[in-house]
């Protein structure tokens, strides 16, 4: 076995990973260690090397030099062992359109060496989880992009993976598809304590909402890799801008500050800028609570989030 000493702590590891396309350097000696049982967001501007990293990790591309390891196995040299116990969703994959979800799960289950009984039991459970049970026997050719992505996420769970690699899983989806995909990812995270996820994304909100660690890349190098709260320095707060019917008074601001998950509320013209801890559920709860306080809300929108601010700072510094 080609295990590394730190495999137990870091199931995903790259050592001096480099990839060039002609004169363009996509990866420049990337050293990355993804902590076990973490949900790590891989961030970076276009061309930073995120997708290349994930494609090398999932054996879709070969590195020019350096190594990529999963559970201690070199992906390039020991592909089968490395990718065992790994679930992958790379972009929005296309499926074999002549197959149904059940047949697709059966095909990939056979590739994974699973028994028919095991595939069958898992398929039913997973299709329920991704809310695709009623589409189980329909050909994938008729599915929308969002539905295919749900199947793709389900497929990544087929062999009860310990490691999941996601490359921009919500890219190209409509808002509903994005929300559904995020919901599934949240459930996957919450249902499984022994799971390491590495996910690339462009969406700061998504990363703030889902990930507990962040790795930031630019120009093929790792700029930062840390706990998300350390990175944003503000315990995962998001800025919500609330437009209300009347100018907010000091009393109103004080009442809003007293609401659950709200750490501060300040006037911004005729709006209120609220620092909110949490994701969509907390935002929805805030909307309800504002109504209960008798505050007439015209609209709620997301201000620049803390991670985004930090991200832009770091990317600018690295230019």
């Amino acid at each position, binding site marked *: 076995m080609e295990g590394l000493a730190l495999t137990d702590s870091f199931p995903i590891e790259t050592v001096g990973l480099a990839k060039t396309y002609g004169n363009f350097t996509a990866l420049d000696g990337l050293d990355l260690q993804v902590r076990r049982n973490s949900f790590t967001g891989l961030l970076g501007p276009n061309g930073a090397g995120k997708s290349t990293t994930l494609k090398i990790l999932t054996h879709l591309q070969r590195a020019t030099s350096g190594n990529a390891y999963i559970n201690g196995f070199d992906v390039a040299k020991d592909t089968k062992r490395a990718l065992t116990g790994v679930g992958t969703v790379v972009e929005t994959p296309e499926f074999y359109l*002549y197959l149904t979800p059940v047949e*697709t799960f059966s095909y990939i289950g056979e*590739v994974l060496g699973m028994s028919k009984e095991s595939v069958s039991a898992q398929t039913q459970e997973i299709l329920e989880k991704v809310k695709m049970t009623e589409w189980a026997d329909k050909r994938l050719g008729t599915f929308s992009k969002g539905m295919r992505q749900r199947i793709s996420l389900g497929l990544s769970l087929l062999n009860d993976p310990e490691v999941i690699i996601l490359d921009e899983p919500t890219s190209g989806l409509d808002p509903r598809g994005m929300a559904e995909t995020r919901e599934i990812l949240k459930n996957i995270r919450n249902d499984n304590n022994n799971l390491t996820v590495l996910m690339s994304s462009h969406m700061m909100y998504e990363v703030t909402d889902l990930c507990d660690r962040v790795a930031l890349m630019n120009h093929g190098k790792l700029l930062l890799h840390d706990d998300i709260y350390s990175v944003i320095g503000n315990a995962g707060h998001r800025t919500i801008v609330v437009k209300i019917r009347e100018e907010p008074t000091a009393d109103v601001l004080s009442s809003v500050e007293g609401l659950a998950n709200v750490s501060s509320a300040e006037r911004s013209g005729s709006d209120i800028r609220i620092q909110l801890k949490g994701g969509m559920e907390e935002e929805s709860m805030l909307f309800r609570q504002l109504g209960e306080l008798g505050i007439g809300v015209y609209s709620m929108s997301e201000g620049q989030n803390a991670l985004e601010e930090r991200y832009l700072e770091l990317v600018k510094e690295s230019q």
Partner: protein
Amino acid sequence: MTEVGFLDDIRLGLVVMKNEFIKNFRGKKLYVFAIIIGLILGAITGVLLFLADNGLGDDADSLALTYVSLINLLIILGATLFAASAVVSEFEDRTALILFTRPINKGSIYFGKMLAAFILSSVFIAIYYLVVAALCLIGPGEVDGDLFVSLGYAICYTFACTGVAMMFSSLMKKSSTASILTFFALALLFDLVIGIIVMAAKLDDPWYLLNNAADAIVSCFGSVDIITGETVTVDAVKSVGTMIAWGAVPAAAGFLMFRRRDF
């Protein structure tokens, strides 16, 4: 723990092969090929029955040769339909994102796809020969053993054409380009190259060229050389060896290209 080793790679290859069969059974290509074979058999039989003086005739060898003279084209068509898009379609249709990211070696994928294309083409070719054999029984009342020898050569040629098609499939970025290139290379370009080589080098017997080796499919019936007037004899070992080499070498080259191909 994942099984590793040669036997598991073979198992995975067979899993991929099964999926290729499903793809072809649910697609149009297989039915297009079946229709073309039916049309050719029907057209030849129609011409013989309605235009020839003595219908299917009483010479089994001659009747079989009439049908077999078109088999090379069908074999090329089979390779074009089943093998030329086998690898490239995974990239073009982005299904590689589903399959290549699983614990499976590219060798198993390539092996499974090539085996599926070879088996599908071979089954159709064998059916064609069986129909010819049936027609020989209906007409002349006997089946000559040469027909089955010819089938053996035809299967070897199928292997060669499948290997060439797999190479183009690994090389090209689009299924359509790979298919066109496969068809024209096997049907025209190789003949053209043969002609140029033979003329330029003043070769007497370039037996190592694919189409020359594939002449065995027809020559085994004891055909007569139109230039010399002599009966053509077939060196079975040379012909079979050449065709297998023509299948194996491009297939191996195709695999090396496929293995190095990034998504």
